[in-house]
């Protein structure tokens, strides 16, 4: 009965809604409690929602290419807000263009993300990794 709560949303000025809707639906089906903020979510909104719902992880999507700019500083703001060490996952098409994923991963890890995902990450992978993260 130890259901994990996850905040999901698409960060920044990004309106790609399809993946977000399906991700939220599938994670719920997989047994998580999902707080889905939809698209165009600011860093502040992610943090507020995580505090309010006492979330176990924040799952940030960014599709439109500005992910690097939009995610900058999120970890620091989490710490400031008292969300110590909350798992921050990022996925989607995080940067502009087809770039070497290792480099992108590296840059996002340095920004304090816990795990970073390449384009077209399958639902199964996401669910699996979350289960591992929560030690199931």
């Amino acid at each position, binding site marked *: 009965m130890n259901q994990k709560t996850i905040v999901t949303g698409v960060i920044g*000025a*990004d*309106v790609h809604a*399809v993946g977000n*809707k399906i991700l939220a639906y599938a994670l719920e089906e997989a047994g998580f409690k999902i707080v889905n903020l939809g698209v165009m979510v600011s860093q502040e909104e992610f943090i507020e929602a995580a505090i309010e719902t006492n979330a176990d992880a924040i799952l940030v999507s960014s599709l439109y*290419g500005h992910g690097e700019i939009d995610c900058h500083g999120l970890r620091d703001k989490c710490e400031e807000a008292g969300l110590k060490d909350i798992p921050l996952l990022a996925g989607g098409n995080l940067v*502009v263009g087809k770039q070497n994923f290792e480099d992108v991963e590296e840059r996002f890890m340095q920004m304090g993300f816990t795990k970073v995902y390449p384009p*077209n990450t399958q639902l199964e992978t996401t669910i699996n990794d979350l289960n591992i993260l929560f030690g199931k």
Partner: protein
Amino acid sequence: MEITNTMLTNDQFFEERKNVLSQWKTGKFVNFDETVAYQKLIPNEKRFGNKLAKAKKEGITLIQPRAGVALHEEHIKLLQYLEDEGEADLLPTTIDSYTRLNRYKEAEAGITQSRETGRSMLNGFPAVNYGVDICRVVTSSLKNPVQVRHGTPDARLLTEISIAGGFTSYEGGGISYNIPYSKNHSLEKTIAHWQYTDRLVGMYEEAGVSINREPFGPLTGTLIPACISNSVAIIESLLAATQGVKDLTVGYGQCGNLIQDVAAIRSLNILMRAYLDRFGFTDVRVTTVFHQWMGGFPQDESKSFGVISWGAAAAALAKVTKVIVKTPHEAMGVPTKEANAAGLRATKQVISMLKDQDFLEIPAVITESEIIMSEMKCILDKVEELGKGDYAMGAIAAFEAGVIDVPFAPSRFNAGKVMPARDNDGAIRLLEVGNLPFTQDLKDYHKRKLEQRGAFEKRPVSFQMVIDDVYAIGKGFLVGRPKKH
């Protein structure tokens, strides 16, 4: 705020204009009369509307990419490459996402960061930040007509700068650049904003400068039933024509079933003309645009070529005036110029090979297009009823009531009850009709079609089909069949 489908008065317009031009520092350099003079110097073959009209007359299909980067020198090089190496007939300037949301400061930061890192940190060209003169440098460096493509709910300043900057075509609309591209903008607001854009275009038209206008056909690009996107196209065209727009290109995003795709274009052709004429806009010129599949793409570049070519084939067989081309990098990110040109060349080959074949009048297409037209009539009649004859008011009320409802849209002003799924032939049908004002016959038809699929797949008709269909093309199929089928 009550909005009606009537032409803005000069007073209204110029009052608003002061405000618009002061939204960012580049606004003050826009001058209507000087722009009229400047636009009149653009040679005929470099005017978007002219090239489209010529293509329509000759029965050929032009090709156009999407492209835009942060730095203007790079942007020019990119577009030159696409016309030279990609054989593009028409050019775009795709605007970045900050500009689309009027966040000009963030766009400015994006330009700076791009100069610093040497990578484009913006997903498009920030035209407003650059202003009139640099836009003119862009548009005058190219051999082909250039259009601004974006997704901006409030595009008033961008319109002013674009036209003054020498662009001769402008994409968007108060519905099609709101519902798929925004979360919180009300339709009242965005329709009003786009009345401004359309009125500005109308005023240029009156001054002898014709700017082509293109409502955005594909909406969210994901399993959109033709009756919905076609209805939106007709409404936006009527709104634009009311403000004096004379040159329209209406569009549709490929679904993948050939018969249905050609039928969608056929029904768009027929009813668009009928509605424009009915409201007295007999002098409005209409051309068509077909978007290669707008949903999720396969990761693999060769497979993407397959998707791109199939889109090119459908466009050619439907005899549209232009086709918007995807690239083999689609699933990965904004394409390199090479990948962009590759998509164009594959498309050019197919389009040219198929230019003498025409599927618009084959019986299966006629049958399917008659279904689409009766669906469109259900929707548009109800819009007219809700708006008491006014299509602006009607559209707003229709979205509120779910009479128009765009699947997967992020906007909170969209009902989100309609759910599409593919039938057993891959044509898009409705799993949830929501509040679309369909006749019982039409509802039964959709139901029957999906039940056929369910029977074939030996599973109930359910939301799982929708999910499977969203992923299908990315995974190499059209219909998302259950595993082990």
